């Protein structure tokens, strides 16, 4: 169960090798979290992540999960929920893709969309139903500021996050009053392996800062969290900028 401060005792990570997810897991294990499920494609990286979290004192399980196989989500996640209540589901998988290549190769562009959007739709719905049945829990969805307004440099990734973001907001409204809380987290540029080698954007942040914002959002039962918080204002301005102006901005 979550306590009065929204701190979970059990955590399910979808995308078990995500740096943001692992930073969040580390932070929560230092508080109340004792059981962690890492869902992801079986890999040495997933096992390493599990070993690391075990070292912090949590009971860690891994479960095979692939965003690109939505038909298997029900079975994979059903197995986790059958073992006991999950207080927090953190949806952290996603791919950035390679904008230039993806524009040339529609199939790889579709894979970005399927991972970030279609796969997330299926996983969120499966998790939401299980959370609703247990009458409590949070679903935290990692969106991105890129979804707030698509820009030339990464509109394939951005549009997939825009879809996910809109979906998660709607799901949050649908679950309002059911005891299940949906929180959309919109980080800006996060310094991680996903963005390694990319030019850094202003207001860049780290996985640890995102983790801290997630913990704060859980305590406040927030519906939307921007990391860093100043992005809320910046993105509000950018969202309303005329197309002709936005196109020329160095963002």
């Amino acid at each position, binding site marked *: *169960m979550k*306590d*009065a*401060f*929204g701190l979970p005792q059990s955590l399910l990570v979808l995308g078990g090798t995500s740096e943001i997810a692992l930073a969040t897991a580390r932070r929560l294990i230092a508080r109340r979290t004792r059981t962690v499920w890492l869902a992801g494609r079986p890999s040495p990286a997933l096992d390493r992540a599990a070993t690391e979290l075990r070292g912090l004192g949590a009971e860690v399980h891994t479960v095979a999960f692939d965003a690109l196989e939505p038909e298997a989500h029900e079975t994979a996640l059903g197995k986790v929920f059958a073992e006991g*209540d999950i207080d927090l589901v953190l949806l952290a998988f996603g791919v950035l893709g390679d904008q230039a290549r993806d524009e040339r190769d529609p199939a790889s562009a579709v894979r970005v969309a399927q991972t970030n959007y279609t796969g997330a739709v299926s996983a969120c719905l499966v998790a939401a139903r299980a959370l609703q049945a247990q009458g409590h829990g949070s679903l935290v969805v990692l969106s991105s500021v890129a979804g707030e307004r698509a820009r030339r440099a990464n509109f394939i990734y951005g549009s997939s996050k825009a879809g996910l973001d809109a979906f998660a907001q709607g799901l949050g409204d649908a679950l309002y009053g*059911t005891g299940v809380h949906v929180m959309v987290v919109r980080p800006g540029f996060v310094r991680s392996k996903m963005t390694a080698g990319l030019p850094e954007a202003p207001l860049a942040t780290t996985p640890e800062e995102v983790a801290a914002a997630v913990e704060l959002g859980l305590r*406040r039962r927030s519906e939307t969290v921007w990391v860093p918080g100043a992005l809320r204002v910046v993105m509000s301005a950018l969202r309303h900028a005329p197309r002709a102006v936005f196109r020329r901005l160095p963002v």
Partner: protein
Amino acid sequence: MPADTVAVTGWGRTAPTAAQLIRPRSYQEAAAAVRECGTRGGIPRGLGRAYGDAAQNAGGAVLDMTALDRVHAIDVTEGTVLCDAGVSLHRLMELLLPLGWFVPVTPGTRYVTVGGAIGADIHGKNHHVSGSFARHVRSFELLTADGLVRTVAQGTPLFDATAGGMGLTGVILTAAVRLQPVETSLMSVDTERAADLDDLMARLTATDHRYRYSVAWIDLLARGAATGRAVLTRGDHAPLDALPARARRAPLAFRTPRLPAAPAVFPEGLLSRRTVGLFNELWFRKAPRARTGELQRMSTFFHPLDGVPHWNRVYGRGGFVQYQFVVGHGQEETLRRIVRRISERRCPSFLAVLKRFGEADPGWLSFPVPGWTLALDLPAGLPGLAGFLDELDDEVAAAGGRVYLAKDSRLRPELLTTMYPRLADFRALRADLDPRGVFTSDLSRRLAL
């Protein structure tokens, strides 16, 4: 039976979870609800004054017992009442006071049910004299997980598991409670100020035994030499001859003033260090240095907050946590250290109460042990509060103390066995009586009770 899925919280308004709310109107309906409550179980709920998640049950059933509120019999010569568990102490006071009887124990609110009073084994300002509530319960009828109704007498293991058992042994249907005789409905109250914590503890130690009721309000925002300064209010039921002539015409009248309810949406941040500091300063200054024999209404003396319905809303949307712990006699140093830490941290708490407990109660999970208990309210949104309270838990546990389950919403489960040595007995009895875990609450899930 009307049933609906709703989000439920405790009085602190933190951690809402959804449950099917069932309101049985007869013992049969209650038994049916227990039989049919499904894999996620059920938990009885009274008036929802437990601060944390004791009367919540995510995904399962919550049995609102307040419709079962008949008073079956009052024995005015012996001073006992037999009533349904859903009867509130407020209702009992309304009925019993004109007859010259009072409830044996009342907490800081009249709006608790008899069932809840036994389930949390509540205590009051008279614990050092009278012990906690269950000590005055002769027997009760308990609806257990098998659908049977058992009559449970004082002194039996099932009684001691249920007293303080947080509703996890079954649903109390009726109880026979022994009452306290009174001549009037007024209290004769002595008030004095204590300059600091040591002064306060010395006064309580030296003179507590002279008063039936005793409590101290502490200013936890006072620092330095004034750390722990307090206002003591102590007293007893006023005898008839202490009343002025006019009041003697209706000496047993029960009057309860009521102010408008706190608004549904309260601006957050109003309870800051500054506002609470100002309140505490005024509250301390307003109290007389020493005054004896002041006549007060019962509601003023026992239940000042009941005058403001929904006062819990003043903490805003984020809600609040109440922290109440006890440390035994001889552990005064721990108490001093905790008070100092809270003062130094400048936690905006304006409801901080210190009292001395008497003898421990027989309930296996009953809270009181002989020693010092401090209770304080804190806004849940205070930065770093979770970690700070964890540190206080460690101090309390190391001193052999414990926190109160009826108020808890955040304890680490690991500390529970240290704090409650009879937990193993409680678990064994539950495993035997309720092997399928029909009686389940968010509290029992969170702390693995």
